[in-house]
């Protein structure tokens, strides 16, 4: 049987709160933790299939044009080399998240410097890498490549469904008592997941097994099938452990398709792993942005107008663009609104989803602008935000589902000691350091996605949870175990969760923060299905069924099952509730920074963050997600930046030595506090997504604190010392 729920009505019956056991929400350790710390969790590169040979991708070294010749023969003569592949099915760039079909294919038409063109396969990795270095290609270089999204020779498109013009913003700006009219720029970012992308392809007859590092097997299998021109039924994908994804492993990417093609041809398993440089050059980047923000406020600081226009970029032919204004649409009031999106078509690495696409940078610019408004209007930044929380969606008139936004602002301010801040900039010194405090709001849209799961209550009274869902380090193994344990009245260690196998029921995949609530709901429904069947079997009313401590009522579960397992299936689909209400998650950040008075170096000294994301499924893994988000915020504020050479679109800092993610010393103790919340409109388990919320505005708290410390407002991210140096106060 299957318990199927379309989320058309709010789930006002909070089943998880009524159960005798409440492991859900507790900071339970990850069941996969011991395997990970002992190195026995099998990541994509670690399967060691007998006879595996190694492939290394070769990139285009020109930014635009055609490949006219590849000198395969010279490389074929090198020791160990087994083949040089350059197949028309090779991917130009990875599939966008949830594409469910092949991205643009064909390696001979070059669209950016770094595009994978060929694959060299050899007996050993070192031989393949050497062959890849040696492979000579000739190009017909096109002279019309464009590399700078803001240059006048670059074609700009205006996606139709992302243009808003409501009321009269220009008039509101004239009429307003306080206005902000500023342009902010954010650079490109890379996900920089710890585990580089890797796939091992092996064939048995016409059946392909692909062991990879992917976030969304339910889509990836179709993308792979479409790329290879084979049936999805002939593919099995395995991805039980993923060493971080952050969007970069949403869609099938070049190494998987190349490995599959080479493996078929050579009749051996082929493993293709990306080097760190290749991760930077061939996997999705977050687009840089130019954001023009206009705020028009009345004498009380209440917005009467709000404008947010953005310019982002992508390769020609890509539908995705960074949805920069996603949260701006609903977070603050103001009846006169203009939000226009423009996309520049450039020959740079493909842009795609990088953790919290949209809000990650959109909220940052908006929250800088709000800080400027607070400063101009003399209203405390926390108070200013609270005054602008709308009653109804200012564009659609929708109501909001659970929204503890004001609570997050107040609680953050209290925990941080915001009342000690001096609103006047450049007043506080600690030795050689200017000290400042800043804050920002957090907001991120909430989504529920279709997901299926199977739960088996085994005859011995243990349970098994199964879905093709991934756990890219987020804690999926833990939370699905916890939900099933509570629903079936079992201790956590009596539930086994199996993930990352495309043969299992299709989960939601991990992306857009929807994985936990969607897959969690599917597991919840599957357990409800089991409870119904068990009640029937025991001849009792389901409402009277009490499952606790491995017992059904007074009877041990194994006895109640009498030798039979019960299989439950769960199937959740989004429905009317996502249209009836604007669903989102909220929070606040409070940062204290020191800016060195001599050098302009900024170091974050304290960070407090408060978040509301519906029911928290595991306090420990949720908090870790938020720590990670805040750390991304520190990086974004202070030093992360993809440096493109505007002469050829070449990414110059394509490694972790020069693309500066924060290191331990950059990160102070972070105080993350999660609010107690239930969102009945979001999912049957009242949970929302939390994986991305941690960075949706975080960088602005840091840069607003830099302003408070120094009186210098930098509107180009990251705020490296060179942008402060000549303006620092004496």
């Amino acid at each position, binding site marked *: 049987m299957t318990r199927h729920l379309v989320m058309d009505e709010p789930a006002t019956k909070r089943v998880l709160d009524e159960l005798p056991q409440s492991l859900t929400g507790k900071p339970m350790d990850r069941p996969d933790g011991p395997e990970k710390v002992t190195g026995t969790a099998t990541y994509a590169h670690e399967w060691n299939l007998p006879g595996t040979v190694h492939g290394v991708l070769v990139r285009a*070294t020109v930014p635009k044009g055609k490949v006219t010749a590849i000198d395969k023969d010279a490389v074929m003569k090198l020791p160990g080399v087994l083949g040089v592949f350059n197949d028309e099915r090779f991917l130009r760039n990875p599939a966008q998240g949830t594409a469910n079909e092949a991205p643009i294919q064909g390696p001979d038409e070059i669209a950016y410097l770094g595009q994978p063109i060929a694959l060299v396969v050899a007996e050993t990795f070192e031989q393949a890498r050497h062959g890849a270095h040696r492979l000579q290609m000739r190009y017909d270089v096109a002279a019309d490549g464009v590399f700078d999204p803001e240059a006048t020779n670059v074609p700009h498109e205006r996606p139709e469904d992302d243009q808003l013009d409501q009321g009269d913003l220009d008039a509101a700006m004239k009429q307003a008592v306080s206005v902000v009219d500023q342009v902010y720029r954010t650079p490109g970012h890379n996900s920089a997941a710890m585990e580089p992308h890797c796939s091992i392809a092996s064939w048995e007859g016409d059946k392909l097994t692909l062991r990879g590092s992917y976030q969304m097997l339910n889509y990836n299998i179709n993308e792979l099938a479409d790329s290879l021109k084979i049936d999805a039924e002939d593919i099995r994908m395995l991805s039980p452990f993923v060493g971080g994804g952050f969007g970069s492993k949403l869609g099938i990417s070049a190494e998987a398709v190349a490995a599959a093609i080479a493996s078929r041809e050579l009749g051996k398993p082929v493993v293709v792993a990306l080097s760190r440089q290749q991760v930077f050059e061939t996997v999705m980047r977050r687009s840089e942005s130019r954001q023009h923000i206009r705020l028009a406020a009345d004498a009380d600081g209440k917005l009467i107008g709000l404008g947010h226009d953005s310019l982002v970029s992508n390769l020609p032919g890509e539908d995705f663009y960074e949805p920069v204004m996603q949260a701006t649409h609903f977070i603050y009031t103001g009846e006169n609104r203009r939000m226009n999106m423009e996309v520049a078509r450039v020959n740079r690495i493909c842009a795609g989803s990088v953790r919290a696409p949209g809000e990650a940078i959109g909220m940052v610019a908006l929250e800088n602008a709000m800080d400027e408004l607070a400063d101009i209007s003399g209203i405390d930044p926390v108070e200013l935000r609270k005054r602008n929380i709308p009653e109804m969606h200012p564009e659609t008139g929708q109501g909001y589902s659970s929204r503890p936004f004001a609570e997050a602002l107040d609680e953050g301010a209290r925990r941080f000691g915001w009342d000690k801040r001096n609103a006047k900039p450049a007043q506080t010194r600690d030795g050689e350091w200017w000290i400042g405090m800043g804050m920002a709001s957090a907001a991120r849209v909430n989504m529920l996605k279709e997901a299926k799961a199977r739960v088996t209550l085994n005859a011995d009274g243990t349970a098994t949870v199964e879905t093709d869902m991934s756990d890219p380090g987020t804690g999926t193994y833990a939370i699905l175990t916890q939900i099933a344990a509570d629903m079936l009245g079992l201790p956590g260690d009596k539930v086994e969760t199996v993930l990352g196998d495309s043969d299992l029921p299709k989960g939601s995949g991990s992306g857009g923060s929807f994985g936990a609530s969607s897959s969690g709901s599917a597991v919840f429904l599957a357990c409800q299905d089991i409870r119904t069947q068990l009640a029937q079997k025991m001849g009792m009313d389901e409402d009277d069924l009490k499952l606790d401590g491995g017992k059904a009522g007074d009877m041990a579960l194994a006895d109640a099952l009498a030798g039979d397992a019960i299989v439950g299936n769960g199937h959740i689909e989004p429905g009317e509730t996502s249209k009836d209400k604007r669903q989102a998650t909220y929070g606040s950040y409070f940062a204290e920074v020191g800016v060195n008075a*001599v050098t302009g170096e900024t170091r974050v000294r304290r960070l407090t963050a408060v978040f509301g994301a519906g029911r928290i499924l595991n306090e420990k893994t949720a908090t870790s997600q938020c720590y990670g988000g805040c750390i991304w915020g520190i990086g974004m504020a*202070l*030093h992360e930046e993809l440096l493109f050479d505007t002469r050829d679109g070449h990414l*110059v800092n394509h490694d972790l030595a020069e693309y500066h993610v924060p290191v*331990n010393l950059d990160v102070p103790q972070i105080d993350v506090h999660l609010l107690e919340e239930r969102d009945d409109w979001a999912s049957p388990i009242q949970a929302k997504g939390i994986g991305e919320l941690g960075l949706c505005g975080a960088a602005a708290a840091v840069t607003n604190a830099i302003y408070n410390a120094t009186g210098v407002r930098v509107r180009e991210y990251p705020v490296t010392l060179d942008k402060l140096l000549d303006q620092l106060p004496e």
Partner: protein
Amino acid sequence: MKPFTYARAADTPEAVREASGPSHDFIAGGTNLLDLMKLEVMAPDKLVDINRLDLKQISETEDGGLRIGALVTNSDCAADDRIRRDYPVLSRAILAGASGQLRNKATTGGNLCQRTRCYYFYDTAMPCNKREPGSGCQAIGGATRLHAIFGASDQCIATYPGDMAVAMSALDASVEIEGKDGASRTVPVRDFHRLPGDRPDKDNVLEDGELITAVTLPAPTGGRQSYRKVRDRASYAFALVSVAADIGMEDGKISHAALAFGGVAHKPWHKPELDALLTGKEPSDALFAEAADLLLAEAQGQGGNNFKILLLRRTLRAVLREATQMGETA
């Protein structure tokens, strides 16, 4: 990685003998060389492993200084009691570099010879005169945040990226070098690295097969020493600029001044006139401004690194104020 032959040398003469040949490199800690070999930025035909050589001691010299063997690791050198006591600038410079793991492997000789971090040098798809003489310099007109403000040429604008050697330059240390047939020579650290000129492929004065055996430090001057490294993130990043100082004070006047600068040139930058200007004077902001003017008179930005000129001026002033105990800077 290009296939290469490998020889493990038992002693210095054997190492030098094995390494004589144009495409032969020593391998010490391997923390720089192996990265470059994986990228085929460096592709030697032969590696001579020197890790068995007896060059791992720090010993006292007759004139009251220290002799640091070429294979003393960065970690051991920075932790040595004598270095921490008498040459704190060196200890601090080393600890400001790389990471704990890297410093455990990195050696004194290897650190001196580390290659530039110019982005284009690291990418074999790009023209680079240092990697491939005559191919051009892609950094000029490109991303130049890491690049030189002193002594660049129209062939190369790269910097020597290290920290340790900057401190050694301030301390006026010397490099002991052993060449073919037992020939040995000593070169002041200040003259060890070259300016790029029209031979940017040559980072330093070592000839093919020459081995660094030790670095000697003269007797300590008794001055106040400091190393200040300015960088984008708090750790694990190369210097945008750095200042190493050894400043002695007597009767309210500067009795000894030795300053060296990192992240600004193809070598640790040392300007004897600057040391001379400061020596014998009473410290004052006016004097330090004069010193900065002298130092920066010939500075030349490349666009993306123009900020280094102001940054160096401010950092120099702060270091001098601290070293002369004038108090912290505005």
